[in-house]
């Protein structure tokens, strides 16, 4: 999409002639970055060559994002050198880095939600008339051209805030591409992307590579590293642990490098897990004809005590809507029975009273009160059970918190610590702890390990399996198939707001579930 002549920066960067190995476009040498109480990076090297896609892998808190911010000029390193084509540089700001051809699209969407798609794409360079007014027609055509080149089917005149989050993210990537960076840094671009859009993005990135643009890529879906990248750099606890060509490594080794121990088994079903007997275990949750928000309908599900039911389906298939309807967070029709008794779910409070707990997919927006302490977040759902006449019982509360710290292995300095300062994994444990503390019959989780690192994922899986073993019925809605294949006793697949098929967990495969999710057709094997 861009020619070399259009690239910004001094021409000598492109001096490498044929036969000469390409000079590294950008080098980070022995980078160190210290924050109070944390050595975020120490002695980290990263080399990026022209037309190369480099994956940077590591758990949450391993320093990936900090390193990217150093590379993109958001942070100034305390130690080490940043060099462009062998020449040391110091970026004063992200704008400075961008002017030298290094552009970062961060994890958090940075868009103008109240402006149109076209205005976002052409921000700061809208075509104008001689009177300085905007030529809307020309702007729309230009935006259409940009979108078409990337294979995005989005109308340029739509207000950006009205698009789903993943499209907003794609627009912010497209916007960055307009600056024609020589190094494009993408931090978790696919976190919220549906599968088909991931393909579109990867295609666009491969095209960029063809044109000589270097890409630095970060993702939580390890498989993407192997589908896309040429080389992988692994960070652990702020240090550089490996630099491999993708062809020379594999997913198991990558996980081991990231975590520092062998965890290739995290997506393997534990052998000792026993599926609750169909006849023996009592029915914890049953729905018939459940419908909600005009997005889901005719949902008939049954979950036994001690059973883990997985809900699979593409983005937009109704997984999240189902989870929220089961918790009374949105109004629904149809019947829901808990422990054999019909319940009316007019509000989350009704659901909680019936023994249902809910872990929402948006941890920071809906799961936690970020301004409150760890202790308050853990006890929040149990306040009505503790104390007398509305007065709190501090002894009970702290006992509950201590118990949760132990049972869920929460790593926080103290119960008074602000939850905002904890890692994603620990935050997620606190959202779960809130329900474990209360004690419940049914736990519904929407994307239980989104934005959580591999180690914490494994802990959360074990935690859920432990809860199930003690008799809690668990419903897991997830976009990560591997997660469902590891956890679920049964997997129900949703498509267009309906349950289109169901399989036993041990019989399901990625292929069989995906086939149902896409086609809605029943697979010959294993359909219940």
């Amino acid at each position, binding site marked *: 999409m861009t020619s070399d002549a259009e690239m910004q920066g001094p021409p000598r960067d492109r001096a490498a002639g044929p036969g000469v190995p390409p000079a590294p476009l950008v080098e980070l040498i022995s980078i160190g970055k210290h*924050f*109070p*109480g*944390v050595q975020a990076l120490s002695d980290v090297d990263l080399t990026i060559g022209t037309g190369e896609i480099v994956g940077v892998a590591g758990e949450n808190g391993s320093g990936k994002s900090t390193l990217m911010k150093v590379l993109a000029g958001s942070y100034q390193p305390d130690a080490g050198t940043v060099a462009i084509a062998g020449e040391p540089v110091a970026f004063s700001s992200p704008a400075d880095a961008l002017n030298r051809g290094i552009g970062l699209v961060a994890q958090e969407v940075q868009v103008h939600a109240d402006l149109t798609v076209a205005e976002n794409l052409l921000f700061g360079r809208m075509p104008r008339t001689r009177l300085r007014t905007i030529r809307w027609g020309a702007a729309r055509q230009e935006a259409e051209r940009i979108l078409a080149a990337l294979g995005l089917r989005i109308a340029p005149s739509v207000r950006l805030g009205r698009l789903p989050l993943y499209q907003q993210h794609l627009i912010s990537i497209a916007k960055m591409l307009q600056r024609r960076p020589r190094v494009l840094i993408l931090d978790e671009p696919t976190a919220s992307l549906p599968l088909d859009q991931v393909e579109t993005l990867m295609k666009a990135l491969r095209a960029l590579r063809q044109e000589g643009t270097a890409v630095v890529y970060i993702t939580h879906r390890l498989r993407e590293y192997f589908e896309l990248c040429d080389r992988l750099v692994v960070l652990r606890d702020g240090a550089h642990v490996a630099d491999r060509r993708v062809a020379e490594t594999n997913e198991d080794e990558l996980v081991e490098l990231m975590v520092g121990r062998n965890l290739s088994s995290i997506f393997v079903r534990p052998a000792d897990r026993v599926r609750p007997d169909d006849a023996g275990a009592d029915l914890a949750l049953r729905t018939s004809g459940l419908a909600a928000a005009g997005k889901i309908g005719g949902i008939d599900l049954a979950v036994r005590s001690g059973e883990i039911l997985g809900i699979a389906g593409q983005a937009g298939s109704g997984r999240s809507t189902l989870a929220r309807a089961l*918790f009374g*967070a949105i109004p629904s029709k149809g019947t829901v029975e808990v422990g054999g008794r019909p319940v009316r779910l007019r*509000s*989350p*409070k009704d659901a*909680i*009273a019936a023994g249902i707990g*809910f872990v*929402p997919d948006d941890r920071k*927006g*809906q*799961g*936690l*009160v*970020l*301004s*409150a*302490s760890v*202790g*308050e977040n853990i*006890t*929040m*759902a149990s*306040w*009505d059970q*503790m*104390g007398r006449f*509305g*007065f*709190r019982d*501090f*002894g009970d*509360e*702290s006992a509950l*918190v*201590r118990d949760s710290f132990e049972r869920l292995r929460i790593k926080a*300095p*103290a*119960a*008074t*610590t*602000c*939850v*905002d*300062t904890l890692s994603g994994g620990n935050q997620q444990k606190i959202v779960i702890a*809130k329900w474990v503390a209360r004690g419940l019959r049914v736990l519904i989780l929407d994307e239980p390990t989104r934005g959580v690192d591999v180690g914490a994922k494994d802990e959360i899986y074990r935690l859920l399996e432990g809860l199930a073993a003690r008799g809690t019925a668990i419903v897991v809605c997830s976009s990560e198939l591997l997660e469902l294949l590891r956890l679920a006793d049964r997997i129900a697949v949703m498509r267009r707001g309906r349950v289109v098929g169901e399989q036993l967990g041990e019989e399901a495969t990625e292929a069989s579930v995906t086939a149902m999710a896409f086609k809605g057709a029943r697979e010959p094997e294993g359909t219940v």
Partner: protein
Amino acid sequence: MSNHQVLEPAAGRVAGGRAAGARQLPRRILESQVGPFIGVGSVLVILLVVEAFVQSNFYEPGNLTNLGRALGVPLVLAAGMTLALLTGGVDLSIGSSLALSGTLYAKLYTGGTPPVPALVICLAFGLIVGFAINGFLIGRLNMSFFVVTLGTLSLFRGIVYLWTNSETISMYEDSLTQKIGNETTLGGHVPIALLIAVATVVAIYLMLRLTTFGRQIYAVGGNREAARLSGVRTDWVIAAVYAITGLCAALAAIMTIGRTASVDPKMGESLELNAAAAVLLGGVSLSGGSGSIWGAVLGVVFLEVLANALALAGTSTSWQLIVTGVILVVAVYLDRLRARANQG
């Protein structure tokens, strides 16, 4: 973890925060527990010291008693306003609500109702109006607190003008309000209004600290959806908070009647802004979920001491208004700084 400290509200950031540098000592102070109080607290101390040298009559018992009497109404209003701000809202109607409750009391009194029942009815009226109008619209119907309380600010004031025919009602005869709003006790130096205000503040502090409802107020202000998904009846919590601001306004009305010995249809005008200024000055966050009532108390004391000192110095009301305005802006700026420090 000692038993009783486990469940304090989040005490700022614990060390290891993400983006503070060694050079940012002021920032670290801003983030700590005393942070919100440091700015206004130190300015207050300076003011008190300067007064000792510049205006010897500031510390005369007569002036201190006057100061105490003047503190009653703003303290009670700020106590209620603190709750509204903690939920992430503001009650702009408290000044008008004060006038409406005051008018009701005056009408009951002049109509022959004995003072004590009239007082009880007046307080209940403030509570119910706050709950049923502001509380219902904001909590239950999810309307914007700003629009709703701006509307009731105008609505209540309009009713007061209609009801009083825009005339002042004399209340010289009523000894109950005189006692509450104007008289002193404990050797004739401590205003009863101040004692009632302190009791109100302590009651609200204990409610925030010791009751589930108090913690729910913080949770709702910090993240309304997360609180709802944890089973907190957010609509009720918010409605109850606006009921309390209404009750506080009614109590402040009784005090005002006692001090001025009359019900003026303009009574309480723009006090909502003073109360909001004091609470923000005391470090309660405009976005809800964090802050303490002691900060609000500090803010009120600061504003009243300042007003008293300016008055003693013979400064005109115009200048008092200007100074208050500047200080409100500074308070909001401090709030921004703190929010930024917290975001890292």
